[in-house]
C-alpha cells in the first residue's frame, strides 16, 4: 500500500480552492468559509504527527474541514436561546394553509438532487483542474471561476492576450477530455 506523506508547503496551492468550494457549499458565506479553510490548515499542522499515511492528504484535510463545519454550526447554535430547532410558521405568505402539510417535502422537487449532483460536478472539475499545468490552471481559474477580465489577468501575470487565449484553449481542451466520460452528454 502507498504511504502518503504531508507537504504543508503545498497545501494552499493544491487544496485551498477545493476545500474552499466545499466549505462555501456548507456555510454559504465566503468569509466564514475562508476562515474555516485557514483553521483546517492550522489544525492539520498541529496534528500532523497523528497522520498515519493511510489516506491521501486531501481526504485527510477534508475530514478535518468537516469537523470544523460541524463545530461552526454548534457554536452559532449554542448561543443562549438559540439552542432549540427553529421552526417558524412562514408568516410572510398568507398563513392560512395547514402547517403540517407545508412542511412535507415535495416529492417532485429536483432541487436536492441537483444540489448533490452539482457538488459532485464541482469536485470533478476541481480534480481535473488539479491535473493541469500550474500556469494553465491559474489562468483558467482566474478567467472562468473568478471572472477577471482578460486585460487585468494579462497585467497581473505579465502575458499578452494571445498568450492568454492559447492557455485558455489548452486548459479547456484538457478539461473536456478529463470530464468527458462522466459529465458530457453529447
Amino acid at each position: 500500500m502507498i504511504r502518503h506523506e504531508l507537504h504543508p508547503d503545498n497545501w494552499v496551492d493544491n487544496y485551498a480552492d477545493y476545500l474552499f468550494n466545499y466549505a462555501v457549499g456548507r456555510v454559504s458565506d465566503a468569509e466564514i468559509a475562508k476562515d474555516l479553510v485557514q483553521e483546517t490548515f492550522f489544525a492539520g499542522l498541529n496534528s500532523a504527527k497523528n497522520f498515519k499515511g493511510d489516506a491521501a492528504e486531501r481526504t485527510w484535510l477534508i475530514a478535518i474541514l468537516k469537523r470544523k463545519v460541524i463545530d461552526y454550526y454548534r457554536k452559532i447554535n449554542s448561543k443562549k436561546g438559540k439552542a432549540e430547532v427553529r421552526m417558524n410558521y412562514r408568516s410572510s405568505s398568507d398563513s392560512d394553509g395547514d402547517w403540517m402539510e407545508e412542511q412535507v417535502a415535495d416529492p417532485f422537487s429536483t432541487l436536492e438532487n441537483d444540489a448533490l449532483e452539482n457538488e459532485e460536478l464541482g469536485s470533478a472539475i476541481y480534480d481535473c483542474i488539479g491535473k493541469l499545468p500550474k500556469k494553465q490552471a491559474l489562468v483558467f481559474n482566474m478567467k472562468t471561476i473568478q471572472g477577471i477580465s482578460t486585460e487585468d489577468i494579462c497585467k497581473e501575470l505579465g502575458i499578452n492576450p494571445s498568450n492568454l487565449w492559447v492557455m485558455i484553449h489548452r486548459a479547456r481542451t484538457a478539461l473536456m477530455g478529463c470530464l468527458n466520460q462522466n459529465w458530457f452528454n453529447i
Partner: protein
Amino acid sequence: MISCEQATIICNKTQYREATFMEKLKLKFHLFMCKTCSAFSKKNTELTSLCEKAELHSLSQVEKKRMKAQLKGRI
C-alpha cells in the same frame, strides 16, 4: 473564410462573451461549413454551462498569499 485556428480562438472568446459581432458572424459561418469545429464548439459550450452549473468558488491570489504567509509562520 476564416481558418479553423481562428475559429477556435473566437469560439473560446465567445465562452467568455468577449467576441465581437463580426467575429461571431464569421464563426457562425465557419461552423456551418466545418463539422470538426462545430463539434468542438458544442463541447466547449457544454463545458461553460457545466462550470456555471457547478457554481464554483475559489480564492483570489491575494487571499491565497495571505493564507500561505500565515501558514508559513506556523510550520
